[in-house]
């Protein structure tokens, strides 16, 4: 049975009842893992409180941080400071320079582009080539497809069709996530996969982008963040205790 993940569930952290109800809804809809974006300065107590809510609803939590840097330098600074604090690092690329830097940096997990401004979607062939060498995935949020209407939605779908083709050609992983801010924008994994057919992506690939791809990202990062990790391919298998 597939294990589904929604790596971008934007729960309101200052409204605990609503956050709890969104997490419960995600569990009811069939997700096994959710990624909640947190502020870089979130305390350990806040994270453990969220973990407790997720444990109660029998769902796994991946901590996530979204960076929106204005320059590549700012991105590098943020990565240096916060990479080891979160399980998923996503970068919203507002400029081409930032997009290129994010695509080639191995510490970046997800590349995000604007859903409303098509000109700011910098995922072209050069970006795909850089991303394919650095393991970063492109993240497609599905809530904007629900929210946008008429021509904005047409333009977005047309752009996504191109991006998905480019990503598949360069073997860049694609992650589908909800980006939902409200329960009414949340859908089950199969419904989101059906929405992906609107940009000519087969259901089977879309379901993979909601299950295997995000799980692989989270598990790889959890291994890296574990105290037993030394370097790629090297990890501690046991420790000898002193006499």
């Amino acid at each position: 049975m597939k294990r589904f993940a929604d790596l971008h569930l934007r729960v309101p952290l200052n409204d605990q009842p609503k956050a709890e109800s969104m997490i419960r809804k995600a569990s009811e809809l069939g997700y096994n893992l959710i990624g909640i974006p947190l502020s870089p300065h979130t305390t350990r107590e806040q994270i453990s409180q969220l973990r407790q809510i997720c444990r109660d609803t029998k769902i796994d939590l991946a901590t996530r941080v979204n960076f929106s840097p204005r320059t590549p330098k700012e991105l590098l600074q943020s990565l240096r400071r916060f990479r080891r604090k979160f399980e998923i690092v996503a970068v919203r690329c507002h400029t081409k320079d930032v997009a290129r830097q994010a695509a080639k940096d191995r510490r970046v997990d997800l590349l995000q582009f604007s859903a409303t401004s098509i000109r700011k979607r910098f995922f072209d062939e050069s970006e795909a080539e850089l991303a394919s060498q650095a393991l970063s995935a492109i993240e497609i949020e599905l809530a904007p497809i629900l929210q946008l209407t008429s021509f904005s939605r047409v333009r977005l779908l047309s752009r996504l069709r191109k991006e998905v083709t480019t990503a598949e050609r360069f073997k860049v992983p694609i992650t589908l996530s909800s980006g939902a801010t409200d329960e009414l924008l949340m859908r089950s994994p199969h419904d989101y996969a059906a929405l992906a057919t609107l940009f000519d992506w087969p259901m089977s690939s879309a379901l993979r982008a909601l299950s295997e791809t995000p799980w692989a990202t989270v598990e790889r990062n959890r291994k890296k963040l574990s105290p037993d990790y030394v370097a790629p391919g090297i990890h501690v298998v046991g420790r000898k205790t002193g006499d």
Partner: protein
Amino acid sequence: MIKRERRRYLSLEVVSEQLLNEQILLDAVQASVHRLFGEYGASKANLKLIKTILEKRQFVICCSHIMLEYVRAAIASTTEINGKAAAIHVLGVSGTLRALSKKTPKV
């Protein structure tokens, strides 16, 4: 002999604060299919309402099996019914009503 059209039965659950009836729901789904796939797509989908359980806000509709993915996409893209915020979730899909009731015991 004319080959019988293959159909798919979908059980749906509506999340909305307003009162609903079967016609409102069917209109909302049909409008969504029409918006996304036009008159040609809507005619191929051949949507019909089969069953309603109003107290649970659940409905069973059927559509042509070749349009299943498109109908599902249209249902998922519904964000309002009668001008008010709403969401429709697909609880299960099957080729027969009997199998559907086994898959989704709530219906």
